[in-house]
């Protein structure tokens, strides 16, 4: 049980680290890293929620108690979504870098007001 609690706590800690990275860092690549961190944190939480002590893989024939396979399906879907978000962000950052020659938010003349 302790291990599961530790895992839940770790997930929230990583989520907060990702959020902090996005808020505080001025480098656009670090922002994307923050996004990826937040995604992994939520995925960690979902995967852990399907865990049963002593569970076996949910493949027929099942010997014993199988773990919940539903979170695995969610995780796969969410990984695809997160990957497309990150890929899109990197593509836009590349375009910005071509124009400004930097990925520092302070040097990019932002849309302000």
């Amino acid at each position, binding site marked *: 049980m302790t291990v599961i609690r530790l895992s839940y706590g770790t997930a929230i800690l990583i989520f907060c680290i990702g959020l902090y990275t*996005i808020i505080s860092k001025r480098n656009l690549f670090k922002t994307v890293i923050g996004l990826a961190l*937040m995604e992994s944190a939520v995925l960690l939480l979902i995967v852990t929620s399907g865990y049963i002590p002593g569970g076996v893989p949910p493949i027929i024939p099942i010997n014993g108690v199988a773990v919940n396979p539903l979170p695995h399906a969610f995780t796969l*879907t969410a990984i695809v*979504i997160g990957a497309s978000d990150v890929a899109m*962000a990197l593509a*836009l950052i590349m375009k910005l870098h071509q*124009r400004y020659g930097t990925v520092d938010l302070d040097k990019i003349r932002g849309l302000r*007001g």
Partner: protein
Amino acid sequence: MTPVLAIVTPLAWGFLIPLVYLFRKSLLKWAIPLFEFAIFAITLAAAFSGWRQYTLSFLGGWPAELGIVFVVDKLSAFFLVLVAIGGGGAFLCSYGRLKSGPWRYYVIFFLLQGAMNGVIVTGDIFNLFVFYEIFSLAAYLLVAFTMSWQAIEAGLKYLVMGTVGAFFILLGIAYIFMATGSLNMAILSVSLSQIPKETLTVIAVCLLVGLFIKIGAFPVHFWLPDAHSSAQTAVSALLSGVVVKISVYALIRVSLLFFLEARPNIFAVITAVGVLSVMGGHLMALRQEDIKRLLAYSTVAQIGYILIGVGVGTAAGITAAAFHAVNHMFMKAGLFITAGHITEDMKTRNISELRGLYHHRRGFVVIFTILAAAIIGIPPLSGFMGKWYLMLASVSAGNIVPALALAIGTVLSALYYLRILSAFYSPGDAPPARENPYWPFLVAGAFSVCCVILGFAPFFPPLWGVFSEIGICAMDRAGYVAAVFLE
């Protein structure tokens, strides 16, 4: 009419376009409008069948406990009609301007429409998240489509904020799954009231923070003015008119089904955020010089009005919110289309330089005036009626502060819209000669006529009965649960 078709058709069209392009380029000229017309018709058909009775479709034939279920009730039907009309109008504007040239644009456009229909009809919370992300990704791409530096920057800002919001929603869904072991919204609306209050509070906070970021409510609104003002004209109209309403729909659905009985103080939070958005949006709009940014900040304020209606948490409040949502769709889409074409004509977005347009672009300016009068809330136009019912709903629920915010907001919006109108009607030089665009004029004109007609809706009981049924149906949680379980 099965609701699955309303999702599958736009997605299929989106992926068919590249094939049509490879097969014969000249076919695209006919195929794209035909596809859009088919989507329009199918969406309306799904909406009408859902209006008569709950329309269900079980994916793969699994019952609601095991599989994904699509549900169309009156609330969904209303938003499906909104998407069909708003999407159709934006499509006509973009097709009139771009023709069938950039086929990639239409791929994204159809994906956006399919995913929006998906968010509206789905009855499964994780499925809602998936469709939500598809439509968000399509929206980021549409914002950045022109590849100008403003568009790319606005798209990136929108993407980062939108993704943070999406992960908050996903975190909320993960907690829901851990607490109840289920994802079907009808089951959750029963089982979420039995879990500990503290857990429910955490879930509510995660979902609301995510949805507020996606809606663009005041404290986290700053991506919205950039994204809505940097996109092309038709995309701005689509974003402000339709895309934001999908988030409003998700908020109404989630808050009413999950938290109305178990955690009613969530609605006080929604009202407070609505009041903040009204004041913040109007005050920020006052100091804008750029006409499209001004309209975008006005969207923040109008979303605040709708949130106030949702936050009342009664049938009257939901009715008023739905009525104002459709009003705002017509008003803001029309305003963005007219303003977009005027600024392209004049090659500037600065309000003080947009002078003398009444004498040279009379049609557009007259339409803009009607729509601006409607959004300020001059009786008997539709904006007045929307605000009137919002005020009535919030006062009869015993809440005076939102009503005061509505009144002050009306004065503030009159200030800045009159500033634009005084520039338009003052004398000035003619813009360089340019043919009058046909489709945008027609769409904006039709939207302004709709605003006038909707202003008289409350006086016709059959028409107003449609709106009051939406509120009653949205509050009917037991009916929704019974319908999903085929009782």
